[in-house]
């Protein structure tokens, strides 16, 4: 007779990926409500993002000359106070393009089937926290990259070749691959173990007796 053992994950286990149908159904059900929430929260989030990035910029410049100004609820301007007023708005960028990936993060985290809602929401809170941090950093690097590479002679005069390449490449990598890949990266970080069947809940045997046939008394 075999000794009862804890359930073990197969070390060579291939993915036990959730049922596609449940996931696709949940994604289709959730993506529109999530997008509506994202749209409603966007003005507040834009302010948070610009405030966070501006604070970060002020920590790295002396004197503080950068203002990040919201425009039309979707975009923002980078303003340098040390430039002449007619040229102080040095760059405009779309803020919704920076943080639309929040829709993907929220939808993917909420749509995964077979996970208790409490755990989904806890994980989503962590993922959103990480995404907010990423977005603040992305805005910071958008501004720094503009300063280093986008202002012609002024950029060449104030930034060396290494700084220009470093800021440009960092902004490029954050703005395309990692901004777009972040939802999947976070989702995999939280759920790959579940998907692969590594996190196996132990099955606890109950001592409940089997139901007796109708009309018979329970034997003592």
């Amino acid at each position, binding site marked *: 007779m075999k000794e009862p053992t804890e359930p073990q994950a197969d070390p*060579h286990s291939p*993915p036990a990926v959730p049922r596609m149908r449940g996931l696709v159904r949940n994604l289709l059900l959730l993506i529109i409500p999530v997008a509506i929430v994202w749209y409603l929260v966007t003005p507040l989030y834009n302010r948070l993002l610009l405030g966070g990035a501006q604070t970060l910029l002020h920590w790295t410049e002396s004197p503080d000359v950068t203002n990040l100004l919201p425009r039309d609820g979707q975009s923002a301007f980078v303003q340098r106070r040390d430039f002449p007023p007619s040229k102080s708005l040095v760059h405009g960028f779309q803020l919704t393009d920076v943080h639309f990936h929040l829709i*993907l993060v929220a939808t993917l985290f909420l749509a995964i089937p077979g996970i208790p809602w409490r755990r989904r929401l806890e994980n989503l809170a962590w993922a959103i926290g990480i995404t907010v941090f990423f977005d603040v950093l992305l805005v910071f690097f958008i501004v720094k990259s503009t300063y280093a590479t986008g202002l012609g002679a002024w950029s060449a005069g104030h930034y060396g070749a290494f700084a220009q390449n470093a800021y440009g490449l960092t902004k490029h990598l954050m703005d395309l691959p990692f901004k777009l890949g972040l939802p999947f*990266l976070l989702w995999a970080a939280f759920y790959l173990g579940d998907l692969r069947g590594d996190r196996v809940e132990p099955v606890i045997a109950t001592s409940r007796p089997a139901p007796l046939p109708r009309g018979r008394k329970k034997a003592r």
Partner: protein
Amino acid sequence: MTTQASDPTSGISGIGRFFRTNRREILFLVLFALILGASFALISVNWVNDHVIEPFTGGIASASTGALNLLGQKVHQQGTLIQGPRFAVNIKNGCNGVEAMLIFLAAVLAFPAPWKSQLAGLALGIVAIQAINLIRVVALYLTGVYFPKVFNASHTVIWQTVVILASVLLWIYWANRLPRPMPPSETAA
């Protein structure tokens, strides 16, 4: 999960134990990030951009132009530009589906699977992503012609979300279809 008595990691610190128990997940994530970063750094090189990405984007523009002409739009192509009588779209980096392809590629290559399955997954996934991207370009052109007010939101939010979500779903589908090797106890019997 292993029992404490036989757990070789029981004596090490919490962080060490975390890394041991989540080794495969961490390896996947690190590999994914490295492949993704390296592949994007590669396509940022001017030579690669000029000799690989630009012609590839031109091919997408050709296919989109063909599809739009089939739909009755009288458009013509100039490089990566699709020009019509009422609207024009220029397919730039970020709109050519290469990002979604590279995210999919990084996820497939980082996942432990037989190389034949990886190759098959990559081939089918890339074709599927480009098909979705073709629909995106055509839909964006039509949006620009008939609903210009929503073009911006459609371009930056809706279609980017759809394409990335599609590549994630394709990866999950691929991973779900991988053959499962028998557990050691069953293979021994």
